[in-house]
């Protein structure tokens, strides 16, 4: 005889069958039935202070573990609070499963208390979503949601379950892999690249004199960092790692040019502009990377490897499109290259190109003006100290803005999955909850969040969650008392007309706030104090730590390609302007 369960029991058991170890959430009216069987479950539930926090925690967890993050919240306002994390996960291809309560089926469409059209609202920001109308369907819908979230191009899925469906009884079953596939006839991601295209790509690679490996987040999603390294070393082709791919290739590697794009290194930006072949691996020609598309890498042929066929030709038409999983395709590409080399083909000499690139790297390192004695701290200085003091393998998380760009620039990323940030959506407030999720996923690692004072004030309440749940994250606020990136744009592009951008240099008191949330709070005003504060923070492992670095308010991020301009128009740090012609 089949075992009878309630829909709620089936939901929790289905999550256990999907090997969910932890979920982030906050209960309320319509999801209440699901919280009851949770009491007997092996799943750890982390009670957040705001549903947006649950979503970003699930994302942070997924970023560092590669496993789907799970967030469970109630209907209406809770579901709308989950919208931002879902959209964030959609833009950055993060595997995540959202579970929302819904008003009882009979009340749907009546504007019932805490009702909203959750599947309608989230349709365009999830890879797939489903309103479950029958308790019997719950196991299949859960399996589909996890399957879709984690395969192909990963992304968020959402399951919306009315309260009565959670309460109704069902006969427990667990669908087989084949049953799941049969239920999704329209979902068959292509993972294996086309052999002929891969061979064609190998030929182009051997013929290129100025090639660049343009590596995006897809390489991390495909767990292809080892394959990428083998490809780069075999061909001696320099590598740029986009904001979403930092850590996919070690920054210390002689072939690594760092980050391209609006605030990328002058070397990475220029090398792409001058390239004759861009090998795009899991990258999507984002506007922050290409600058003005018509002026982007004008002489380059394009090999575009992506598991999502819709990315190919979306921005720039590839000469060789390859639809497939980056790891599998890169491995096949390496084989094809070796075959060609063994059959006597020769690779074009990339030596002159590499020395030209090295020249740029020597001439145009990242640069900032050290602060004079008694003057305010420099954010870049704080990052150098944080980086140098961090234990090996530290995971660094950031919010969105100047501090994010400086972190990406100044941190040394040596391993994959040590960098967590909001790239596509640019969600301010991402850092604190995402760092908590990352620490939950990798409790063995030190997790530093580098945050801005504007970002911190959006989601700081989750540090209460972290204190109570004993999740000892460390937060470095680069506090310039401004919405720094907005200030930078107003200074540079709006004639220094500062509009609604100052956040106050006195309020809040971040140390007191940290302490009120159960954290250790430390304030740093002087460069001399930075190292000691960082050492102290690194030594605390029983609670969260917040370090409030009071940094110079007028510091700007360089290099910079102004929005909408060609990458050739890159603005350098003033100390490098005189040698600009070397970039020609």
């Amino acid at each position, binding site marked *: 005889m089949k075992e009878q369960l309630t829909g709620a029991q089936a939901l929790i058991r289905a999550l256990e069958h999907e090997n969910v170890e932890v979920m982030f959430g906050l209960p309320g009216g319509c999801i209440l039935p699901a919280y009851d069987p949770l009491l007997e479950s092996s799943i750890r539930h982390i009670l957040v202070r705001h549903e947006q926090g649950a979503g970003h925690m699930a994302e942070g967890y997924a970023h560092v573990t590669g496993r789907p993050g799970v967030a469970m919240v109630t209907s209406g306002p809770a579901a709308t609070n989950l919208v931002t994390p879902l959209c964030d996960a959609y833009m950055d291809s993060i595997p995540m499963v959202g579970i929302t309560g819904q008003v009882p089926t009979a009340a749907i469409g009546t504007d019932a208390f805490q009702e909203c059209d959750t599947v309608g609202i989230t349709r365009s920001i999830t890879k797939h979503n489903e309103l479950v109308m029958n308790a019997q369907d719950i196991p299949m819908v859960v399996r589909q949601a996890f399957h879709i979230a984690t395969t192909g191009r990963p992304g968020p899925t959402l399951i919306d379950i009315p309260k009565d469906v959670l309460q109704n009884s069902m006969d427990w079953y667990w669908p087989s892999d084949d049953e799941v596939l049969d239920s999704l006839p*329209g979902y*068959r991601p292509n993972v294996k690249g086309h052999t002929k295209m891969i061979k064609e790509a190998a030929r182009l690679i051997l013929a290129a004199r100025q090639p660049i490996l343009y590596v995006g987040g897809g390489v991390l999603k495909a767990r292809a960092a080892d394959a990428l390294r083998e490809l780069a070393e075999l061909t001696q082709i320099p590598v740029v790692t986009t904001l979403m791919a930092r850590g996919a290739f070690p920054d210390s590697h002689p072939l690594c040019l760092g980050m391209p794009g609006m605030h990328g290194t002058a070397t990475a930006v220029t090398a792409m502009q001058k390239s004759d072949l861009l090998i795009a691996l899991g990258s999507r020609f984002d506007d922050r990377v290409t600058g003005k598309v018509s002026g982007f890498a004008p002489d380059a042929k394009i090999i575009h490897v992506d598991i999502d*066929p819709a990315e190919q030709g979306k921005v720039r038409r590839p000469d060789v499109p390859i639809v497939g999983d980056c790891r599998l395709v890169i491995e096949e590409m390496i084989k094809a290259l070796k075959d060609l080399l063994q059959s006597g083909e020769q690779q074009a000499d990339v030596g002159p190109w590499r020395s030209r690139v090295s020249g740029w790297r020597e001439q145009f390192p990242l640069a900032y003006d050290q602060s004079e004695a008694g003057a305010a701290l420099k954010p870049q200085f704080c990052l150098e100290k944080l980086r140098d003091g961090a234990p090996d393998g530290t995971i660094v998380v950031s919010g969105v803005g100047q501090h994010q760009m400086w972190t990406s620039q100044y941190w040394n990323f040596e391993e994959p999955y040590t960098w967590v940030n909001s790239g596509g959506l640019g969600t301010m407030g991402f850092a604190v909850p995402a760092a908590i999720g990352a620490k939950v996923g990798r409790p063995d690692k030190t997790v530093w969040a580098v945050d801005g004072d504007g970002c911190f004030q959006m989601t700081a309440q989750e540090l209460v969650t972290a204190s109570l749940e004993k999740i000892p994250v460390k937060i470095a606020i680069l506090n310039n008392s401004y919405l720094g990136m907005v200030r930078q744009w107003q200074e540079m592009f709006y004639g220094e007309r500062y509009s609604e951008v100052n956040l106050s240099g006195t309020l809040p008191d971040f140390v007191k706030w940290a302490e009120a949330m159960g954290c250790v709070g430390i304030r740093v005003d002087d460069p001399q104090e930075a190292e000691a504060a960082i050492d102290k923070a690194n030594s605390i492992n029983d609670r969260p730590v917040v370090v409030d670095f009071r940094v110079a308010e007028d510091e700007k991020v360089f290099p910079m390609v102004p929005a909408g301009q060609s990458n050739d128009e890159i603005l350098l740090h003033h100390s490098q302007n005189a040698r600009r012609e070397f970039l020609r």
Partner: protein
Amino acid sequence: MSGNNPYGQDSRHHVLSVLVQNRPGVLARVSALFARRGYNIFSLAVAPTEHADYSRITIVVDLESAPLEQMTKQLFKLVDVVRISELDPRHSVERELIMATVKVSPEQRGQLVELTNIFEAKILSVGTDALTVSLDGSPSAIDDFMTALNQYGIVESQRTGLVALPKLDRAASSRTEKSPQGKAS
């Protein structure tokens, strides 16, 4: 709707035949995708197929708004979309239905009945000073019929939008079939 013969011969318009799983919200997913990506739909017809699990949506898309390739790739990303065929007007059979209520005086009624016979249209309803007629045919026949009716004055009309299937004799070459194996992620 603009212009003469909006379908077929005009290269701006292409016909997509989209097989979808017959599930709640599937039409909303398809239309929301077009709206979200800024693609224009010229006409759209949807109904269940011979197989209860599937519906077929025939969409006439306007290529001014985006390249066809990007539209179909984005459409493929919807989990409920099983197959997309682009139907070439030269190798497919196309039909559309129009119903129109036309103002007509008793003296003119005879002319209108004759016109209806010429087009092989049907008279569905007769009023004292109006007739409701219907015609199914190729989009260009519908256009011609509408032009003819306009002389009398159309009170109200409704076109169904195009539906189409590949021509049988040349079925193999008539559509660019995107098999599920080529599905987007």
